[in-house]
């Protein structure tokens, strides 16, 4: 028997899975839960080829995986989730692929906004896009702004999607803003005026909306940051999984949290010593 297009065995399985996840969450909550988890979503195209999907099918799968991962993070009580969706370097890919990804993003945002209660609002998640958004086409920019506006009132968690983002570009932007502020006429107060500090740069970063990540998870076996949150990752636990992004499950998240908990007290001790 089907309900909402989902057959009964699948619904039973989903409820069983939800119950099991509740047990896991209760166990993990005995220890510290990370505040901010970031994902480098690598492997969508390879997944699409493996599964013989149409062009863009891998990215659709990646989008579904992201929504599920946000749900699991909400269940775990993780307040900030960041996903590296599209790098400025990715604009060097073929124009067809870039256009496909932009069209897919616009299509998915429209799909969400067409519902009375979109997925993110149901989860209480505010969506924020970080990056050099002026590089996006006008339809993509409009869709992004509408989604951010539609979810602006949600406060249980923040999902930051890094789109048209690289960390070096973020730092350059912060340096530019810092220099502009230091040169502004109303800032001329004394000889300390032109001293630049870490805080001056940090407040102008695109990712200033969230604290430093506790964990950065990269899929597909890559062991590099690929210009993602370089400034913010100085004390972040870096975890790599060999699975492709669409194949990520909540068990990977549980494993990552366990690893975080193992290092947590050592890092706290180090912070206190400073």
């Amino acid at each position, binding site marked *: 028997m089907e309900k909402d297009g989902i057959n009964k065995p699948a619904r039973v399985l989903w409820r069983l899975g939800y119950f099991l996840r509740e047990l896991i969450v209760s166990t993990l909550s005995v220890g510290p839960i990370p505040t901010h988890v970031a994902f480098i979503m690598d492997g969508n195209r390879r997944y699409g080829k493996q599964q013989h999907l149409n062009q863009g099918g891998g990215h659709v799968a990646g989008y*579904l995986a992201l929504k599920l991962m946000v749900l699991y993070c909400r269940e775990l009580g993780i307040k900030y989730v960041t996903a590296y969706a599209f790098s400025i370097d990715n604009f060097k890919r073929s124009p067809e692929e870039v256009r496909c990804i932009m069209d897919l993003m616009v299509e998915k945002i429209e799909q969400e906004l067409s519902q009375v209660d979109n997925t993110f609002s149901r989860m209480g998640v505010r969506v924020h896009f970080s990056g050099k958004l002026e590089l996006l086409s006008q339809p993509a920019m409009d869709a992004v702004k509408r989604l951010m506006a539609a979810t602006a009132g949600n406060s249980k968690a923040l999902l930051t999607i890094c789109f048209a983002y690289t960390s*070096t570009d973020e730092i350059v932007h912060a340096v530019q803003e810092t220099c502009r502020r230091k040169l502004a006429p109303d800032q001329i107060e004394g000889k300390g005026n032109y001293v630049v500090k870490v805080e001056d740069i940090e407040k102008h970063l695109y990712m200033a909306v969230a604290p430093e990540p506790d964990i950065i998870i990269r899929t597909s076996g890559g062991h590099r940051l690929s210009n993602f949150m370089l400034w913010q990752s100085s004390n972040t636990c870096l975890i790599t999984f060999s699975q492709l992004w*669409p194949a990520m499950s909540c068990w990977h998240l549980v494993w990552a949290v366990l690893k975080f908990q193992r290092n947590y007290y050592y890092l706290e001790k180090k912070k206190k010593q400073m």
Partner: protein
Amino acid sequence: MLFSLNFTLPPIFFTNLSPQSKPFWNVPLHWRLKAKNQTSHVPKSPLCWTAEQELIQQGKGENSVEEEEEKVFHLGLEDQTLPLGLRREAMPRHVAVIMDGNRRWARLRDLPVGSGYEAGVRSLRKIVELCCQWGVKVLTVFAFSSENWFRPKVEVEFLMSLFDRGMQEDTGSFLRDNIRVSVIGDLAKLPETLQELIINLEEATKSNTRFHLIVAVSYSGHYDVVQACQRLAMKAKCGLIEPSDINESLVEQELETKCTEFPYPDLLIRTGGEFRISNFMLWQLAYAELFFAQSLWPDFGEVELLKALVAFQQRRRRYGNAPAKFKALEVACVEF
């Protein structure tokens, strides 16, 4: 010359999740990489919904899963001076190392902490020699972090005296072996005698070309970017540039690593089993391959370095672009 970022740490009982964990002597001549058989400690469970299952539910993922695009690695002709498994044309030009684990090494042997640092110095000498032989052009070592100033005063003073002694003792070998030495970091915080020694050593070795050793002392990635920003702010104040002119190239020219021809590390090795960058060269590590070794720094020798380099050479580096054919990518790796 070295340091340790290490503090007390609970015993390590998790293994590295890296799928590239083959011992160096086990590298086959013809190796197929199969994504689904790679090391994974996380079991798949039907009770946890994944995107894969969502697609199956939607009737899109019903085809059987085939192998991932095969990555076939052919080892080139072996260079007589390189160990088995290494290809000279794919050697990283710039290797960065976080030398972690000296104090743990000493504690495990019931030795004073100073012995750990001294063992680390010996290990560093060995690694410098190997990098010279194997064709690495630049080696950057994280000797003393900005955060290490908060350590006990006795320990900091010991480390400063160790740097002093190490530089004096090794000046002869740097000149003999044609090694250029640069020291990066907030040197104003160092004792004046050490600052003078550093200036003299840099001056004496500045024309050496065979190998470049960069020692990061009183350094952090945040400090590097902040001091670059400070310089650019002063230039803007003097009217030399506009804030809108600031781009990645200008920032790079002001970073401390401007002293070298290859400022961006291709490979970062961290010893000691920790999976963090600990505020080291944050800007420059944008595309670096990261290798986390379980062994402590004084135990990191030829075998471990070989493992790291073999693992590096087996990785595909795409820099965000579409994947190229393997041969073209190999060339691209060399060019970068």
